[in-house]
């Protein structure tokens, strides 16, 4: 049974596709890797995009913008409760999110990070923090706040956060369990250009075929028997 865990997403002729969550994970992981993230961070990018997509939020679109600006983002440093870019101008939300999750329990909250590109992508990591601590986590920025509880329920100004391009954020324990979690929306169909551009990045993880590689992958004899 072929198990094409390496396969990409087929783009229908219409260009608009309803992707499954596993396709979103695979596509975004590969796109992040293709754009230059380490495999481990690319896995986090796939997780984050899928987490948002499953809640009706545009994680894949936000990730695409981050990948387009990969060169503006670099490594980060954390000191005195603050995550800052080491040498670059902005922080990747994947770097920030993984640092928040990794440092959970090590570093007193609140932790701030600035400036963060597409901070929507930090939300999935609040879920990880909340699960680990069994207590909701709150993300605040100038225009609003969004909380995520240990079950992954989201409440707050998600629509505003979805639109935020760059923001300084503060993450802390939520004072109380959020009581008005937004209902999980169905994933929206992929816009053709987003799918195409993520796929372009994903294809950078692949290797052009040669006659030898084609032949080597199959049977030594005819497989039509």
């Amino acid at each position, binding site marked *: *049974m*072929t*198990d*094409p*865990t*390496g*396969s990409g997403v*087929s783009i*229908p002729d219409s260009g608009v*596709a*309803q*992707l*499954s*969550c*596993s*396709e979103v994970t695979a596509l975004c992981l590969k796109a992040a890797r293709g754009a230059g*993230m*380490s*495999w*481990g*961070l690319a*896995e*986090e990018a796939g*997780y984050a995009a899928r987490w948002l997509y499953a809640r009706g939020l545009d994680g894949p679109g936000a990730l695409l913008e981050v990948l387009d600006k990969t060169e503006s983002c670099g*490594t*980060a*440093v*954390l000191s005195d409760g603050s995550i800052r870019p080491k040498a670059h101008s902005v922080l990747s939300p994947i*770097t920030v999110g*993984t*640092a928040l*999750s*990794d*440092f*959970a*329990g*090590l570093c007193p909250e609140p932790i701030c990070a600035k400036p963060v590109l597409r901070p929507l992508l930090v939300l999935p990591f609040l879920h*990880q923090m909340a*699960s*680990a601590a069994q207590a909701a986590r709150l993300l605040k920025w100038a225009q609003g706040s969004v909380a995520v509880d240990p079950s992954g329920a989201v409440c707050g100004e998600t629509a505003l956060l979805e639109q935020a391009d760059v923001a300084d954020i503060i993450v802390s324990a939520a004072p109380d369990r959020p009581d008005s979690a937004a209902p999980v929306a169905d994933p929206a169909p992929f816009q053709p250009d987003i799918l195409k551009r993520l796929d372009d990045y994903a*294809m*950078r*993880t*692949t*290797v*052009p*075929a*040669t006659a*030898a*590689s*084609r032949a*080597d*992958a*199959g*049977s*030594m*004899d005819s*497989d*039509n*028997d």
Partner: protein
Amino acid sequence: MVGEPDTHELARFRRPPADVMRLARMGSAHPSRLSFLRILLRRLRGEGWRFDRSLWEIDKTGVGRALYRAIGPERTYSLVAFAHDLPPDMRTDRVIATAWDATFALVDGEPTSADLDRLEANVPLQEAGRIGPGELCLSRANRSVRLFEYVVDCLAAGRQPDRAQVDAVGYLMRTTAVYGAGKFGAADHHRIADRPEHAAPFQAEMLTVWLIRAFTVDIVEHLAAARGGAKAAPLDPDIKQGLGVGNSTGLGMAPFLVRHPVLLDHWMQAREDALARVRALPTASDQTVSAFRAALTAAQENAAQWRSAHPIQVDKLADLRADLDRLATHLDTFDGRVPHPWNVLWHWGEGLSLEGQEALLSLLLEPHGALVDGLTDCMSADEDASFRIDGTVGVGTTRALLEDHYDWALALDFDDLGAVAQFWYVSEEKLEPRLGNRKDDAGAEREQPLGIAWLASRFHAALADLDADMPLAEFLLTQPEHRYMARRLQIVARYPFAEVRDNLIGSDMLPIDLMRCKLAFFGASRFDPRSDKWVRISLFQNEPYPSDLNAEASARAAQ
């Protein structure tokens, strides 16, 4: 009936991961009663599922569509089959194919006529089409050139095909892919994971293949009737029983076990626990001993019919046949009354080849369903639950964990070109995993992260001179390139059977070993490598058909 075994007591009957997780042993795995297709059949039978063919619109040339329903206590699943007229020159099992003799989708529920039309526009295209959240699997199959037409001709003339000729192939059609779990738009696994019939792994895929098996016989009989008219004969039930569904698979399958470490652990743990439970039994009843003998006889018959022309498999088959014969002889003096008789037998079997040892494992499970079948409840995994890295762990502890769980990898010399001779990559053309030669082939800079031993070694080197108290979080912030391996290490520390303990990029690595292990868990028999990267197998051979289970259920209802 045996009670739940004591976990502590079982420990001394368990094999250590260092023995179990070696490629050579994994590449000798045999299907067992814990295999996924066996789990499916037990459930269908136990719950009295009913089956029918609710649509058959296939013309005289064998082109059209059909619908098979599996009706369970709570839900119905439907296999939609599209039969095509494929020119012989377009028939290939490789993923590079663009057309097939038949294409299929497994529908969650019953398709409406609009669903059928939508599926007809997409399913024949396979990877180039889309299915939706109402579908669970996408698959296709090609006819066996050696057998299909021959059987149609025989039946059309009113005769049965020659048994030896049928046995030499063992199937009328072979599937070349069975996609599930969200692929090409299908329902994500989490949407169905809480249903009991999907609690075990790959149950939708197994149901798909099993219903395809019924289709392969139906289409042959249909074509024979179309050609032979009144004189056409149906296929002899005995011959039919011996037919499975063939399957061709290449490297696409090999990375799965590496990419799903928690799942691999759970499959292996269940199997190893099952073996330990049997070995720990204080005595053996006459009934289980005779059931064991019957299973051995069946295994000997299977080994006699199992054919392969591949030099590696030819040698392994010779080992297997010889070992099963030795086992049969040894059994003449087997004493079920000595303490822990199955354990005594197991230790005797440690003198057999790896093929023989792993066959013995499967045989030991066979008469002990009541003791081991419940372990199949533990074979699925929530992979998300182990995704998060614990960054509070110190670098010193991380180093110690690496030295403990990856000692086999750290012992390798990666300055030796042989240790890094191969690399895994994904082909741009067909998006299928392939293996390259690092010295000669382009593309190593786009290597997939499957050379775990090398990654572990580099992670270990990066941690070497750091303060033991430094939290892993701090290390990963500055060196995110080790994040992949850090996550893996934390998984392996918790799940000891999660890692294949061999170098997957070494010059002597054989991908077919990974494939055989996975296929054995599926329940595949007649493993027949066609190269070191491409295999044929058979599924559901000698198992019942939907009509057999219908008859059983009716008989039970009449009692």
